[in-house]
Every structure is written in structure tokens, then in C-alpha cells.
């Protein structure tokens, strides 16, 4: 295999997939870090986000990239609604019950998608897009470039929000120590709501980016749940930079695994990495939390 093939068929797709995983993993790591439970409905919220964007494209006649902010706003509202109706009352009970509730939410969200849109895969746009050549040897489609750009913008905006604004600092404080944060006057309920708004937006973004680069279908989110969790834990729970790093590693590992494994086991790679991390370094590469 020459360098051209390696770069264009493994490295670039791996980074692309990895950057989408990164967006999903940031959402997981925020819930894990601030609300302290594994949110199993994350994958199906990603699916819902992708279909909300599809709805904006087919019903509203929007350009797919303009549908993205619409889907993000809608998904944020859905996430806040789910928290208020399904998780909020469990806040004082053992956290594992919230994990269970989130598995139920996953099933409910998925069946809503299946009732509304059916189970056949579809796409945002039709037609074949030819990749352009960059620097003489890297093949990239416009939508792939846009995906990388969108991921960079989202991560930068989120980092800026968490570091520079009052609410962002409140979120970080609650992630570090919820009791101390409350004592210092942080309104935990507001922080929780804000977290779900951000998580909903990130889910929609991840779903849309996955959908525009592959297909939109009812199980797309469930299939990325495992890689996204693996990425969040690999990077270190509660760390945004860790989630990005973990996402890129998992995406690359999946695309490179086809060199040594049969292609149908691509999605097993994330699982193996997850088990290895839990076995040898449960805090992750960047020393996150362990629940």
C-alpha cells in the first residue's frame, strides 16, 4: 500500500469520523462530568438530531448546512424536555437509576424516529460529489472540509464559553465539585439546564455531520454510542480536550483496523479500546474522573 492510498482511504476518513465522534464524545463527557451518569440515550439523541435536520431540509426546504442550526435549537429543547420529564425526579436517588431511565429514553426516542421517518436510510442531498485534490495528493470533498471546519468552530466556541463566561465557569465548577459549587452560590438547576442545552446542540451537530457524510437512518446513533463512550473515557471523563483526542484516536483506530481485521468488525475496535482503557487506565489519557 502506498502513501496515497493510506492517506486517502484510511487517514483522512479516520480523522473525519474521529472529529464527528469528538463532537458526540464532548456531549457524553459533559453529562458524565457534570451530572455524573452514563447517558445511554446519547446515541439516539444523535439520531434524532440528524432527523430534525432532515425535517428542516425536506419540510422547510432549507440548505442542509442552514438546517444545522435549526436542528441544534430543536434538539436542545428536546434534551431539556427529556431531562425535566425523565431524569429530574431521579436526581436525589442513586445515579444508576438515571442510567436506567436513559436506556428507556433511548428506546422511546428511537421509536419516535421510526414512527416519524420509517427505517429506510436516506440522505440530505442526492447526487455524487467528486472530491478535489489538495496539495497534489489529498482528496477531500467540500462537505468533508466543511465538516472539519464545523468541528473546529464548535469546539473552539465551547472552550471559549467554558473558560470565559460566568456560566461556563459555573459548569466547570460543578464538574469539579458540585457541593462546593453550590456553597459558592452556583445555581445547580440552571447549570443542569444549560448542560442539557449544550448537550442537545452537540447531539444534533454530531448527527448532522454523520448524516451528511454517510446516511441518515434510525440506527445511526445507536451504532456510534459505543465509540463515543469509548472516546470520552479514553480521553478522560469530564475533559473536553480529552473527548476530542479520544474521538480522533477511536475514529483513526476504526479506519485503520480494516488493515488487520475483517471490515465487519470495524465497530468492535472501539469496544476493545474501551476495555483496555478500563483495565489499565480508567482515568483516561488526560486524567479525567472515575465514577
Amino acid at each position, binding site marked *: 500500500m502506498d502513501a496515497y492510498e493510506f492517506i486517502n482511504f484510511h487517514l483522512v476518513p479516520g480523522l473525519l469520523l474521529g472529529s464527528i465522534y469528538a463532537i458526540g464524545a464532548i456531549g457524553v463527557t459533559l453529562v458524565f462530568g457534570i451530572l455524573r451518569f452514563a447517558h445511554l440515550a446519547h446515541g439516539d439523541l444523535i439520531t434524532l438530531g440528524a432527523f430534525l435536520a432532515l425535517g428542516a431540509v425536506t419540510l422547510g426546504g432549507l440548505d442542509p448546512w442552514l438546517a444545522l442550526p435549526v436542528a441544534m435549537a430543536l434538539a436542545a429543547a428536546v434534551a431539556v424536555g427529556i431531562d425535566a420529564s425523565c431524569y429530574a425526579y431521579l436526581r436525589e436517588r442513586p445515579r444508576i437509576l438515571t442510567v436506567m431511565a436513559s436506556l428507556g429514553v433511548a428506546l422511546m426516542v428511537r421509536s419516535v424516529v421510526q414512527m416519524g421517518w420509517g427505517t429506510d436510510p436516506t440522505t440530505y442531498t442526492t447526487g455524487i460529489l467528486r472530491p478535489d485534490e489538495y496539495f497534489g495528493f489529498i482528496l477531500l470533498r467540500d462537505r468533508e472540509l466543511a465538516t472539519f471546519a464545523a468541528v473546529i468552530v464548535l469546539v473552539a466556541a465551547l472552550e471559549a464559553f467554558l473558560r470565559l463566561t460566568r456560566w461556563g465557569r459555573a459548569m466547570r465548577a460543578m464538574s469539579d465539585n458540585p457541593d462546593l459549587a453550590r456553597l459558592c452560590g452556583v445555581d445547580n438547576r440552571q447549570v443542569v439546564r444549560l448542560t442539557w442545552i449544550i448537550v442537545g446542540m452537540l447531539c444534533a451537530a454530531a448527527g448532522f455531520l454523520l448524516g451528511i457524510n454517510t446516511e441518515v437512518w434510525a440506527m445511526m446513533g445507536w451504532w456510534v*454510542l459505543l465509540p463515543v463512550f469509548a472516546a470520552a473515557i479514553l480521553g478522560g471523563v469530564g475533559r473536553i480536550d480529552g473527548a476530542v483526542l479520544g474521538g480522533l484516536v477511536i475514529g483513526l483506530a476504526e479506519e485503520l483496523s480494516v488493515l488487520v481485521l475483517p471490515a465487519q*468488525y470495524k465497530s468492535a475496535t472501539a469496544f476493545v479500546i474501551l476495555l483496555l482503557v*478500563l483495565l489499565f487506565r480508567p482515568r483516561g489519557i488526560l486524567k479525567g474522573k472515575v465514577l
Partner: protein
Amino acid sequence: MDAFGLANYALFILVLVGIYGLMALGLNVQWGLGGLFNAGIAGFFAIGAYASAILTSPALPGRVGGFELPVAAGWVGAMALAALLAWPIGRVCLRLRSDYLAIATIGVAEIIRLAVRSEDWLTGGVRGISGIPRPFGELPYFASQLAYLALVAAAVLLAYVLVERQLRSPWGRMMRAIRDNEAAAAAMGKHVESRRLEAFVLGSALMGLAGALFVHFNRSITPEAIDPMIVTFLVWIMLILGGSGNNRGALLGALVIWLIWSLSELLTDRLPTEIAIQAKYARMFLIGLALQLVLRFRPEGILPEERRTHGRDQDDS
């Protein structure tokens, strides 16, 4: 449906109640007793089903297996293999909070699904395995169904007695102590991780046995026969509704939920085709909703866990 058809249908439903009841008992050992979150029940079910199928089915060119072992050997093999799969997963995850086990077991179920679909030489791929022998299969249809129900009932009863004994034994008390206050139990010198591993492996073996019972009832198995999310979820709602920590609750939950689930299927099958597909997903939505409602309004289930307190003042009353 005439009376005979109705009786046949009732037998069919009861066999599946027994199979799900076995899984609910297994989950009760893991969750009710140990507080361990297994989100990949379908994976252990599938492993048991395929293990028993491979051990007992006749040979077919191009596929490993066809050992034509007695069915009992298949059942033991199913339990052993499910336990063998649970052990390393438990070793890795049980040191950490149960959230990690939930994620890892979802992974296990997905990997098994992938393997079952793609390893033609072992599982027959998408065509699956057929010609699996069924105990009492040579009897006339009705008698055969009845005999199989008796067999399933015996297996459930045996599992119930064993699990009930475990639950009431010092081991069961220790498990509950660990579940309710891990730090205190550890401080008392209990080995938390090993006890949890035992509960996880035992529960998974029961799920594997349920898979074996299913596959011999069905006489064939394909990857489509097991929808991971639905199987896993039904067992969860059975246990939570019935009452986690209570074995009779687990069995009662299996009966109630499976009756509702299969009778609602009868209803939706009568709908016009366009709505029938939607109705299928509406049923899934409703079991998700049922879990939310039970968690909210009756978290202890229909039959709550018995909290026996041992002490002098209780003896007087």
C-alpha cells in the same frame, strides 16, 4: 380461534413467559441483589442460544458443529459459555461504578450480534442454524408443546429454588450489604469485587440457559430472531415492574409483561398494513414509557423486596 387453537396459543405464550422468567431471575441476581447494570442481556441470551444450537444440531457442510450431543449437554454448554463470556467483562468493569458495566455490556451484545452475522462457519451467518432437536419433539404437536412447557417450568422452578436459596443464604445477605453500602461492606472485610463477579457470572449463566431453552423450542435460530434492544428491555421492565430483589416479583413481572406484549401484538397485527408498522414502534415506545412510569410511581415494583430484620424485638410480634 377455536378452543384448541386458543390452548395452543396459551401454551406458546407460557413457554415464552418461562424463558423470559429465567432471564428476569438472572437479572434479579445481578441487579436486584448486586446492583449491577447489565444492558446486554440479549447478548448473553444469544450466546446461550447459539452455543446449544451448535452443540446439538446435525452436521452441515461448511459449518463447524453438528456434534449432535444430547440436549442437556447443549444446555450446560450454553450456561458455561455465557458464564465464560461474563467473567472477563466482569473482571474489567466491576471495580468501577455500574455505569461502566452498562456501557461494556451494550458493547458485548453488539459484538455478539456482529459475530453471529458474519461468522458463517460457526453460526450459519444470516441463514442461521436450523434442524435443532427439541425434547419431546416426536410427540404430536399439542402434547409436544405441553411437554416442553413442563420442561421449561421445571427449569424455571429449579432456577427459582436455587436463586432463592442463594438470596437467603449468608452470600445473599452479603450481596445486599455490598449493594446498599459498598464502603461499609468492604470495611467489614467483604471482598466486594469477587462477590459482584460471582453475581454477574451466575446471572449471565441463567440468561444463557434461557437462550438455550428458546432455541430448542424454536428449532432454529437466525440473527433476526433476537432484537437486542427489545429482549434486553423487556427483561428490565419485567424485573422493575415485578419488584427487583424479589424472585417471585421477577417471575410475576415476566408473566404480566409478556402477556401484555404478546396480546398487544395480536391487536396490532389486525391493523391495516400502513398503520401496523407504526404500531410496532408505538409498542416499543410504550415499553420505554412504562419503565419511566414504574420508576416514577412504583420504584419498588408490584412485589417489593422483603426486608427482613433480624432482632429480638421483631421476634415478639
